């Protein structure tokens, strides 16, 4: 009898659960734009006329960053009545193809890899950007940027956020105490490294462990150096396989990077020998700087978020970054960076309205004001960028002398750029010689 009763109880629980579930589903929020005609909405007039429509966005942006995104287009939603439904995923790169192939594509995806974007164009899944979006993008972004989302002459979406990777992090406080000055040429950088090494501290620290993306910080290193030793034209040919991956100029660049990364006198401050770079996490890579065990750490602008809590990131603070100097200033000011592109799998008018809005100066300023964000958007007002490193980054991106190039591993086919190149760099740090590593990677590029 007791058995029967417990079964009944379970059944009741089940039914109850079902009822609760239905009730929970019923409380969706019905948004209406009743303030569309208010004065704050004047700027959004050209996006209006899609009241009650829904646009889904899929990206790799999560947690606080995702909340900031929602906040950044809040007013747009209120004024146009378009409901933007953003979903961030930690497995974005792996899940997006699954969703698209499964017929469940989002309306818009923020794709950080032009290589992945091209893959969707090739399979015919991506819709070209509308004329308004294109006009807006051409107005606000330099051709350097737009070429990365242009495939076979067709434009597929404007850039959104960006980051600058050509930075060396240092401690202004330590530099001041020791009387070191920020190097502005490659030679000064090496001289400073030697000086620090002679004083008994290993000058450089690095970490390339990053879960299933282990190796990427080292690929950035190589790309940044190649831009400096061989110049942007060679770099472009290299990323598009116009020259082989193991071209002699690339060998030179990798060896040049090796004079720092594989130099036992220089690395790995605070962690150990050269090989400790392979197992040190990207997040921890630069932290010895705050403890004075290392002086220099080459990493992107977004490393600002990795410092221990309470670290002041500013020109007069505990840590800050300087531009990774050029080797030959005659070749301009090469800047390596990354960013994501607003690509659409649907061409409904409301989707295009969102695409156009995200390419606009209004959006860039709205997002920048919330903090921790950089964009190459020319309309972005420096005064709206609160964070000093972001300010520095935007300044570099807007600089006329800047020769911008996108992170090469994101341009290559994923099997190389997110596969053999990463893994090859891990092996290189772990003691394999440059030629073998580059030959292996070239062999994997089909």
């Amino acid at each position, binding site marked *: 009898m007791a058995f029967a009763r417990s*079964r009944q109880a*379970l*059944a*009741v*629980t*089940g*039914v*109850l*659960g*079902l009822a*609760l*579930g239905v009730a*929970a589903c019923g409380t969706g929020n019905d948004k209406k734009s009743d303030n569309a005609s208010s004065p704050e909405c004047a700027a959004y007039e050209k996006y209006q006329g899609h009241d009650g429509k829904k646009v889904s966005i899929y990206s790799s942006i999560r947690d606080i960053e995702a909340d900031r995104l929602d906040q950044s287009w809040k007013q747009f939603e209120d004024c146009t009545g378009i409901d933007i439904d953003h979903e961030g995923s930690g497995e974005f*790169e*792996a899940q997006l*193809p*699954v969703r698209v192939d499964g017929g469940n594509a989002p309306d818009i995806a923020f794709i950080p890899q032009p290589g992945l974007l091209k*893959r969707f164009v*090739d*399979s015919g899944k991506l819709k070209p950007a509308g004329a308004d979006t294109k006009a807006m993008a051409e107005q606000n972004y330099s051709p350097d940027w737009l070429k990365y989302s242009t495939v076979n002459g067709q434009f597929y979406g404007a850039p959104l956020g960006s980051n600058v990777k050509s930075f060396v992090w240092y401690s202004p406080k330590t530099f001041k105490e020791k009387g070191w000055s920020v190097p502005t040429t490659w030679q000064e950088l090496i001289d400073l490294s030697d000086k620090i090494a002679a004083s008994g501290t290993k000058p450089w620290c690095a970490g390339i462990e990053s*879960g*299933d993306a*282990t*190796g990427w910080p080292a690929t950035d290193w190589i790309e940044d150096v190649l831009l400096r030793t061989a110049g942007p034209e060679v770099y472009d040919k290299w990323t598009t396989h116009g020259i082989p991956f193991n071209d002699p100029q690339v060998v030179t660049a990798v060896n040049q990077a090796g004079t720092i990364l594989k130099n036992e006198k220089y690395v*790995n401050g*605070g*962690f*150990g*020998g050269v*090989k*400790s770079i*392979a*197992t040190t996490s990207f997040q921890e890579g630069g932290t010895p700087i705050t403890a004075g065990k290392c002086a220099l750490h080459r990493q992107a602008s977004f490393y600002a978020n990795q410092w221990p809590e309470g670290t002041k990131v500013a020109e007069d603070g505990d840590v800050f970054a300087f531009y990774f100097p050029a080797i030959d200033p005659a070749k301009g000011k090469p800047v390596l960076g990354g960013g994501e592109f607003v690509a659409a799998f649907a061409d409904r008018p409301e989707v295009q309205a969102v695409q156009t809005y995200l390419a606009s100066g209004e959006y860039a300023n709205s997002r920048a004001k919330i903090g921790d964000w950089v964009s190459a958007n020319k309309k972005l007002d420096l005064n709206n960028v609160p964070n000093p490193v972001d300010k520095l980054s935007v300044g570099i991106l807007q600089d006329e002398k800047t020769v911008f190039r996108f992170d090469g591993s994101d341009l290559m*086919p*994923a*099997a190389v750029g*997110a*596969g*053999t190149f990463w*893994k090859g760099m*891990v*092996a290189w740090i*772990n003691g394999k010689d440059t030629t073998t590593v580059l030959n*292996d990677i070239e062999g*994997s590029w089909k």
Partner: protein
Amino acid sequence: MEFDFAAEQPKFLMLLYGLIAFVAVVGGLLLLLDVVPTWFARRREAQLVAAAAGGGPVPRRRKQREGLFAFFFLLPTLLFLAIGLVVPAIRTTLLSFMDARSTDWVGLDNYGWMFAEDSIFRVLINTLIWVLLVPLVASAFGLIYAVLVDKARFESAAKSLIFLPMAISFVGAAIIWRFIYAFRGDGQEQIGLLNQIVVSLGGEPKQWLLDSPLNTFLLIVIMVWIQAGFAMVVLSAAIKAIPADIIEAARLDGTTPWQMFWRITMPSIRPALIVVVVTISIATLKVFDIVRTATNGNYDTNVIATEMYNQAFRYGENGQGSALAVFLFVLVLPLVIYQIRNLRKQREG
């Protein structure tokens, strides 16, 4: 770090929905399983009562309806098996003969690639090392432990100690062991257990997961740590099931413990031992989480399952990924067939 409950609220809501959905589905199924047979039983009972009261012949249970009934309950399983297993298996096999974008047929190219590419060949070798070592070591550990603690004091406590790792997920276990193998430079405070031991003995800290092939063996230790508990529990139960009279007879004949183990225990638990070895072998062939979490296949530690995932989902090489999947399937197949045959033989015997 402070925990902001309000900020995490969506996740908790999600969790709540998941729980509710689980209760709803399971509850619904239980209800169905409870109500439907009861209804039929009642009806039959009523018929019987009516027949008995009317003095007529007892109505016979109709066979056809029972068959229909069985089919009704099998239907969901058959449907799910078809959707979740049969169709994907056929599709994967087809994809393995196609190119990266699954548009053109390429014949056996993907299979040729598997053996020609050095790095992939290394993957196959690593998998071989895994599948040779893990079942052997884990079963041996489990067996020795089961024999040693059998009828000892605190037997259940000793057994739960070894069994506990079974409750930890592979990813969790890999993270735990990553900390054990963790490295900090010479002269710094070590955070890894193994290096701390080495340092206290006067040695230099070492980057354990970096040097091949040592690192593969260190990863295998993780798998053994998890699986030994499983082997121990099954084998211990088998040892306890050996009839007492056989043991008593052997004792009366004056067997040494050594003879007892090889002549009595081993032959008696042989079927259980086979089940354990085969089950662990299959689990080992499919190992993915440990390698992905601990090294992500770097430093020459890759195995088939991780490489398969990388090829298919990260690099967009559907053909090569599928070929690896099919190869893995072919490797597991004989083990499964052997297992099933064995079970059948046992049942007949």
